[in-house]
Each structure stands twice: as structure tokens, then as C-alpha cells.
């Protein structure tokens, strides 16, 4: 429903960035409104609070690392959750690819968010793309901060189906 691409540079060597990205519990504070409740191998159970204007949702669900290619520094995480109070269901598929650059490491994120329920039906179009772009941007900023400032991240590009 909303596809977000974001690329940013971090001034740290690729193996370090890779290792940091495998430590999911340490990354959770980088996602505003997220909390980790339980870890079971590659499965993470938690919740995510999102609010845009007067519209708020609290998703409870799971995230799993479904693909991991250490040699090529590529991984994919699938997440899904339910906002019981609002009757909304969300899912996301986040793929990232690391590549070494002069300044350190280039992180390429490709996220695909899907939303079903009243928020998707009645919410103003552009809302989901904006929400997801904001989340992605904040995550990227936080990650850069942690790993060492690289070049500033450009605003994420987002596309949403009407």
C-alpha cells in the first residue's frame, strides 16, 4: 500500500553496521512509539504506537527476520500487528542492503507498509505514506546517530496506492 525507499550513509565500516542491525533489541529505541515485549530466537513480540493528528493506533504483533544474507549484507524483516481498539491491521516488510562507500557504509532501506481497517478506509489519503515515511526517516536518523554521522539522509521517497 505504501512503499518507502530510503538511502543514507553512516560513517562506520560495513561489518559494524551489519552487526548493529542484527541487535534488534538495541534498535527498538530508534523507532518512536515502539516497545519490545518478548524475544524468541528471530521472532520479536512488541507494540508500536503511532499518532497522526487526532488519529492514533497501537499495534501489537510480531516481527521476524525472514531472510539473512551475511555475505551480501542483506536482510528482510516481516512484521504484522493488530490495533484492537481501532480495528486496524498493519503489516510491513522491510528489506535493507548495506554497501561500503568511501565515507563508511551506505544503507538502503526498502519498506512496504500495508494497512487495513478504518484508518485505511477513512483516513485521508497520503496519511499512510506520510506516517510510514516519518517512521522510516526517524529510524534512519537514529541509526545514523548511533553509528556515527554520515551524510545527511534525504527525505525518504514514498509512493502510495490510492
Amino acid at each position: 500500500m505504501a512503499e518507502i525507499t530510503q538511502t543514507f550513509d553512516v560513517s562506520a565500516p560495513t561489518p559494524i553496521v551489519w552487526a548493529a542491525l542484527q541487535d534488534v533489541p538495541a534498535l527498538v529505541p530508534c523507532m518512536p512509539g515502539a516497545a519490545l515485549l518478548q524475544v524468541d530466537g528471530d521472532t520479536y513480540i512488541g507494540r508500536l504506537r503511532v499518532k497522526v493528528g487526532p488519529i492514533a493506533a497501537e499495534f501489537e504483533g510480531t516481527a521476524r527476520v525472514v531472510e539473512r544474507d551475511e555475505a551480501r549484507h542483506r536482510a528482510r524483516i516481516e512484521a504484522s500487528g493488530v490495533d484492537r481498539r481501532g480495528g486496524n491491521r498493519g503489516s510491513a516488510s522491510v528489506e535493507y542492503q548495506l554497501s561500503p562507500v568511501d565515507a563508511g557504509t551506505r544503507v538502503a532501506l526498502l519498506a512496504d507498509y500495508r494497512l487495513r481497517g478504518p484508518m485505511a478506509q477513512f483516513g485521508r489519503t497520503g496519511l499512510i505514506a506520510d506516517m510510514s515515511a516519518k517512521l522510516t526517516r526517524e529510524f534512519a536518523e537514529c541509526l545514523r546517530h548511533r553509528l556515527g554521522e554520515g551524510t545527511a539522509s534525504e527525505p525518504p521517497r514514498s509512493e502510495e496506492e490510492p
Partner: protein
Amino acid sequence: MKPAPFDYFDPSSLQEALELLADLSWDASLLAGGQSLIPMLNMRIARPSALIDLRRVPGLDRSDIGADGIRIGAMVRAASLERSVASSDSAPTCLRQALREIGHPQIRNRTTIGGNLAHADPASELPAVFVALGGTMTLVSKDRGERSVPAEEFFQGVFSTAREPDEILVEASLPTYPGRTAFVEVARRPGDFSLVGACVAAVLEELVAREVRIAMCGTGDRPRRLREAEAVIEGAVLSAERLRELADAVSAGVQPRSDLHASDEYRRAVAGVMVRRALERISGVPS
């Protein structure tokens, strides 16, 4: 449908309202005129656990239109401002025109200027006026007191503003602008949400345009100044050809989204037309 249950508060002072807002969790909503919030409550898209009604907070419903600018209390109703502006020579024309486009008279009797601005619907007319004319928003919180935010920084995305969760927008102001202004929008029916709207301002000496300001609504996630388009006519003599050039620059400069009301191509094309029309109104140069 009907709203889901919420805790209702109607504080009798700004201080009380700020304390409530600071105490309550992330899940409280402020209620001003309710013309945007209550439909969301009714459809249960918004389900705040608490509602803080500002109707009893004194001092937020005054507006002051003078030679040195306009100051509008957040709880001033659009209809009331419409009347004040109509009987004043100092108010910019684009403000009067934009106010007329807000919903229907029945909505304007209830909707507030502060609520409209804080809600930051990308289709909303007033944000474009405030961005074009360099307006300022005054925010207050319990812990940090008062601060002012320029309109361009205030609007940050769909329903997103610089207002922190514990802040209340108390006033919005517009500086005097020395030139002529116009607001033009297209909607499928009068009173509908705008598909595309343009607020244009220019100081005209003969047909030379200076201090040009162009801001659009309905062409993205927030109102933006189109500085590249402004540069096309800044210091230039307005002519039909120049206006066509401007319209092209406007269309190139916006990044509208498609939605079920209009496609991005339509909005892009119409954006240029709206700006041309607004300039025609200001300058008399036919488009």
C-alpha cells in the same frame, strides 16, 4: 456511528487546560470547533481516551485587525472572522476569499481558526494563506511557556504540525503585506474540500511584480511557498506570456498526490491555472 467513550474535560482557564494536557497521556485530543474532530470521532477513526474542550477558556476568541497586522485568537470562529474582515480595509483580500471557501456557512459558524490551522489538513485553505503571507503561530505549554513558530515551519505534513502534544495553539497572526493578494481554489462543488488552491500576493508597480508570494494547498502533504515559481515573475513585467511561463513553473514545482478525488496530473495542471487566475485577479492581466 457514534463516538467511542472518552473522558471529557472543560477547563475554565488556559493554565488548567495546559495542566490537563501535560498530565494526560499521548491519547488526549483538544476540542475547539469540532468540525474536523467530531466527524472523526463519529466514524471512530479517532478514539482519544480524553477530550479537552477549550470552549470555556477565556481570552482565545478575540481578533485584532489593524494597520500593523492581524492577530487571531485560536477560538475565533471562521464566520466571526469573516465578518470582521469584511468590515476592515486592513485585511488582505486573500484571507477574506479563503475564509469564504471553508466548508459551508453552517460549518463556518462553528469551526475555529486555531482548530483549522492545528488540524493541518493539506486541502485546507487557511494554512496556504498563512504560509504565503509569512504568518506566525503562537503555542503555549505548561512546562516551556510560550513560543512562536513561523507558518512555513509550523505545517509539517498530513495532520502534522510543529505543535508538541502538550502544547495549545493560542493565536495566529499575519503581518501586513503591502501589495495585493488573492486566493483561488477549485473544488467539485462549492464548499467541498479544495482539490487545489492558490494564495498569491504581489506588489504591483504598473505591471511589474515584486515581493511575489505563492503558496498552494491540495498539492502535497502541506502548503508550500513555491519560490522557484515566484522567481519567474519577481521583478518582471506581467504579461499573458509571462503568466503562462509562471503556470508551467508552478506545475513543475508541485508534487501532488493522486487520491480518489483527483489525480496527480489533474492537480499539477490545475495548480498552474489557479496561480494564473489569482494573478489575473490581482493584476488584471488576462490569463
